[in-house]
């Protein structure tokens, strides 16, 4: 079994601050490089995000298999569920589960919605989608390599349900960016 955070307290704290900055400033890249030695199939930022947020109180869904799955189950202590709709946190290493199938909370308790941590090929901020909404002064750019082809359509439907909706962390290697449900995405014209 590979180790978790070298330092349980500061590893989680450092990752959380990256996650908080990311969700407060959608589309901005944050460094989250506190896990040097993790199982194959997981990437450092995505694994750190899950380790920081999930525990025995939060059902987790993941498509990771083998060592990676065991690593998640052991280090988070979270119950692993088979149905994405029942998960509070989801870690997708390959195909993204359809956003519409995930828990979006209710109008009175929109905070009960799922948080999806998605491993993607690469993230860049010099081109790509135009992001607007809370946390963004004018406009942020985000280019995601490896998002599903119909991602923007799925995201528009997710955004339209505000205050209900899924929140998303996009992770590539040791870097991550967030898309909270409040963010509007336009394809660059």
């Amino acid at each position, binding site marked *: 079994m590979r180790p978790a955070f070298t330092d*349980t*307290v*500061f590893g*989680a*704290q*450092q990752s*959380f*601050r990256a*996650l*908080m*900055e990311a*969700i*407060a*400033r959608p589309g901005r890249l944050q460094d989250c490089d506190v896990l040097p030695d993790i199982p194959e199939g997981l990437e450092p930022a995505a694994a750190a995000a899950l380790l*920081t*947020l999930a*525990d025995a*109180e*939060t059902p987790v869904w993941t498509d990771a298999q083998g060592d990676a799955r065991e690593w998640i189950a052991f280090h988070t202590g979270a119950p692993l569920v088979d149905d994405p709709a029942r998960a509070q946190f989801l870690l997708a290493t390959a195909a993204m589960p359809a956003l519409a199938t995930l828990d979006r909370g*209710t*109008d*009175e308790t*929109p*905070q009960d*919605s799922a*948080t999806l941590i998605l491993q993607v090929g690469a993230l860049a901020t010099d081109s790509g989608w135009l992001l607007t909404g*809370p*946390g*963004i*002064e004018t406009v942020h750019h985000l280019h995601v390599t490896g998002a599903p082809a119909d991602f923007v359509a799925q995201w528009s439907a997710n955004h339209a349900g*505000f*205050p209900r*909706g899924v*929140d998303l962390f996009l992770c590539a290697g040791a870097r991550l960016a967030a898309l*909270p*449900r*409040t963010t509007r995405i336009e394809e660059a014209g």
Partner: protein
Amino acid sequence: MNAIPPLNRPDAAYNFAYLDEATKRMIRRAILKALAIPGHQIPFGAREMPLPYGWGTGGIQVTAAILGPRDVLKVIDQGADDTTNAVSIRRFFARVADVQTTTRTADASIIQTRHRIPERALTEGQVMVFQVPMPEPLFKLEPRLAETRRLHALGDYSLAQVKLYEDIAKQGESGSSYAHPVMVGGRYLMSPSPIPGFDNPKLHNSPAIMLFGAGREKKIYAVPPYTTVESLDFDDHPFKPVRAPQRCTACGSTTSYLDEIIADDQGGRMFVCSDTDHCAENQGI
């Protein structure tokens, strides 16, 4: 009561920043959802803290959940760095987290506050943590929390608008000089905590992250950076932030928020800046 001597090292009897890791995770999950739903109150399992309710138990828990060894912490109480509440919370974190503290707004990465926002413009690297006694802006109008949850879900804020209308009809202006409710992101009515109306405009499109913690009421909410925060008002009665028309006796400022201080027993009064760091900076101290 005997004063607790300051330690020069972190207190090893406690986890870093006092709270255990499971509690921090629970609070961190609430903070992320709070930032994703600006202005929406999120229930959390507030812990008993080593200070009484009303002294900032909510703010302390939020600060403890985000605080790291590289942070520089400033704590203010009504704008002042040197009042009991501010001093004891600053010393608490110096003791349980060995974190660097400051009174300079410009140097702080986390500013925990009781009822003021510093005069100096905040920046992108900074996080404000507000201590909140009553997070529910509709509390005095609808005492049933189950009902206020439904009103928030429906976005039905007619109660607050009628209250404001009646205030203006009776006395010509809003009846709330502090904790004047705001609309966040055009969707949620939010209590800005009991900050003076003078500070409400500083919440609007701020570059800093604003987190609100209510310990007794067990709620966390947030305003992300660059988010619209509009004080509740009417088109023909726009919201007016109020400031005493005097100059600060100490630094001469005509723009900062002032406290009125009784100077003697002959009815003498003076006005000084509520933000002690801002006042000292103006005086070149």
